[in-house]
């Protein structure tokens, strides 16, 4: 029933008085009653912790008589040993510094030895001149809450542990992948007398296992072999084919370095291994380099199995594809045709091999157009006559420029004859 500002009926006025009294009686609360029987513990202590006043609720929780507590015990006497340490090292300094402190989880020790979790808040009462007079403290029963918190804490620890484990697993997997990845590519290219080499590799796959590959290695005292290719597909399955391809080509080249012969051996190995329900193929260019120390020229013999044609950048500033038409994708047929080609590199000439990650990079508005062979040839023309390292640097910049348009692995290998021949044969 609410009082309004309006003049009310005398009958009603009497009734109102009666219900007010009933309401007050219902409340029954004196301040003293409220203090003693509040649903929380109250404690007032001197600044040294001596208990000056304590309410009945807290006494009941503790199982102690008032006479045994007031003037005889200190706040810390109510706490467990761990609580005492926490009080001295955290609670008391904080209270001194802040003048108040809330929601600290402590445990009180009851007379029967049982511990009871409580949440404690304290505030320092100051005198008129600002000097601290006493500390008022409330205790809330935190038994249920503590159980709940422990549950949360357990869950959090379990989650943290699972996260740690997942991180460790991920790191281990990453290490294993790095080792596998490094087995698919040469760490460094061998030094070839009278030639310069440069390579670049980047993978679009997040596990860093790519399907592109390349290698350069000696086959005898004077000749070197090289290859570069692309396994159809991505990820670990592609990497397995890459591994088979790399080591088969290396072994085949030592047995018979003729390019068509090496690719035929590889073709048989891949076809035999992957002719089942999950066929796998690759494209590759394999070739040999035969430097002629007398002329400084290098004879290149190569063959392609379904791979985009190599580019030859000439010292005179031109660049052209070295056609290898008719070479079939490796691994499709038990006996596949491969297309051989030959060229000679003179001083300032560079042979460039690449995978279709480069020519099929998506460019332009909406990433709808492909970079394309002609654009690559034009780009190569611009850099013809420059040493392999410079050509590679330019191509790396080109790849960077594609940004997210580069959605496939890309491998690049440049093999060139320096424009200015060293005056001595000593490698520097």
């Amino acid at each position, binding site marked *: 029933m609410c009082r309004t500002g309006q003049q009310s009926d005398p009958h009603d006025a009497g009734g109102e008085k009666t219900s007010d009294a009933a309401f007050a009686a219902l409340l029954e609360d004196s301040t003293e009653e409220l203090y003693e029987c509040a649903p929380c513990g109250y404690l007032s202590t001197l*600044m*040294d912790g001596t208990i000056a006043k304590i309410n009945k609720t807290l006494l009941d929780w503790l199982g102690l008589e008032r006479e045994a507590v007031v003037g005889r015990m*200190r706040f810390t006497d109510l706490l467990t040993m*761990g609580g005492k*340490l*926490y009080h*001295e090292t955290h609670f008391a*300094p904080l209270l001194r*510094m802040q003048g108040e402190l809330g929601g600290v*989880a402590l445990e009180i020790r009851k007379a029967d030895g049982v511990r009871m979790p409580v949440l404690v808040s304290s505030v320092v009462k100051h005198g008129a001149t600002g000097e601290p007079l006493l500390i008022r403290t409330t205790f809330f029963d935190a038994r249920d809450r503590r159980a709940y918190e422990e549950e949360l804490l357990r869950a959090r620890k379990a989650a943290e542990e699972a996260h740690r484990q997942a991180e460790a697993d991920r790191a281990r997997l990453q290490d294993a992948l790095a080792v596998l990845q490094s087995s698919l590519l040469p760490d460094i290219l061998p030094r070839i007398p009278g030639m310069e080499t440069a390579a670049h590799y980047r993978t679009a796959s997040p596990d860093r296992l790519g399907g592109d590959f390349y290698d350069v290695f000696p086959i005898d005292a004077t000749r070197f072999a090289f290859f570069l290719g692309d396994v159809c597909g991505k990820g670990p399955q592609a990497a397995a084919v890459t591994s088979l391809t790399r080591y088969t080509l290396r072994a085949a080249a030592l047995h018979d370095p003729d390019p068509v012969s090496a690719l035929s051996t590889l073709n048989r190995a891949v076809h035999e291994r992957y002719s089942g329900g999950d066929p796998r193929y690759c494209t590759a260019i394999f070739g040999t380099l035969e430097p002629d120390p007398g002329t400084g020229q290098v004879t290149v013999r190569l063959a392609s199995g379904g791979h985009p044609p190599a580019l030859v950048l000439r010292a005179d500033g031109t660049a052209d594809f070295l056609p290898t038409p008719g070479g079939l994708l490796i691994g499709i047929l038990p006996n596949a045709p491969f297309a051989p080609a030959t060229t000679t590199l003179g001083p300032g000439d560079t042979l460039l091999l690449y995978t279709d990650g480069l020519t099929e990079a998506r460019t332009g508005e909406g990433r709808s157009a492909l970079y394309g062979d002609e654009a690559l040839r034009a780009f190569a023309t611009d850099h013809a006559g420059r040493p392999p390292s410079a050509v590679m640097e330019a191509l790396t910049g080109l790849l960077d420029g594609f940004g997210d348009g580069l959605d496939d692995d890309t491998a690049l290998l440049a093999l060139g004859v320096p424009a200015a021949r060293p005056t001595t044969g000593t490698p520097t």
Partner: protein
Amino acid sequence: MCPGVPEWWVEPERLLGMEIERRNNVTVTGNPHGRTVVLAHGFGCDQNMWRLTVPALVEDYRVVLFDYVGSGRSDLSAFSEARYASLSGYAQDVVDVCEALDLRGAVFVGHSVSSMIGVLAAGMAPERIGALVMVAPSPRYIDDEGYRGGFTAEDIDELLDSLESNYLGWSAAMAPVIMGNAERPELGEELTNSFCATDPAMARVFARTTFLSDSREELKAVSVPTLVLDCTQDAIAPREVGAFVHQSIPGSTLLTLDATGHCPHMSAPEATNDAITGFLAGLR
């Protein structure tokens, strides 16, 4: 500025010092011409606990304050469980700070476990520390045969539980959930106290290192002037312990402050400050 030297130029050695100053949140204040007094906080808090001590020193002394790595506003990323699993790891922090500021013969004032850390640091770098003030020290908290530290191993486990329950990092993250007030995060934030807040995992390491330590032997090696301050009523370092420290350090002075609790510099600042300044005045 010097011609040819850019304004931001810092000597490499100085850079290393600055790195330590940042790592340990070093504060230098007071009289630059006075003797240097290093104030080192104990377990559970940070340099803020000296705020009632600093005013008594600044006129005559150069005052250096810092936080141990893992406490206060130190660089928590510099924490290593292995290093701080022993008090000598903390003592290395003291030596690092002394070297960064190139202190010589400084007076080291340590509270509680820091007193013992100071003893170790003085042993590690004798030229850096010229005198010790040990406020409520204890070389061993757990009772031993013929020695009363005041605690059992179970008590220490209880403290670790208390730390866990007041996992401040935890409450910062969980309080809004518990209070159901995620849309009013400031309500939850009040649960995390601004001072003495520290990473719970690091506090746990500090607690273990502190309360499981035993530095009684090291006390005998102290050779610098030493003042031992204990309190009439200290739940952590009872008077027997203060007496033990005093008896173990040759030539030390023991002064019992009429104070309750483990932090006399906060609960009885005047008496504590008088004791410290009196001791400092008596040093050559």
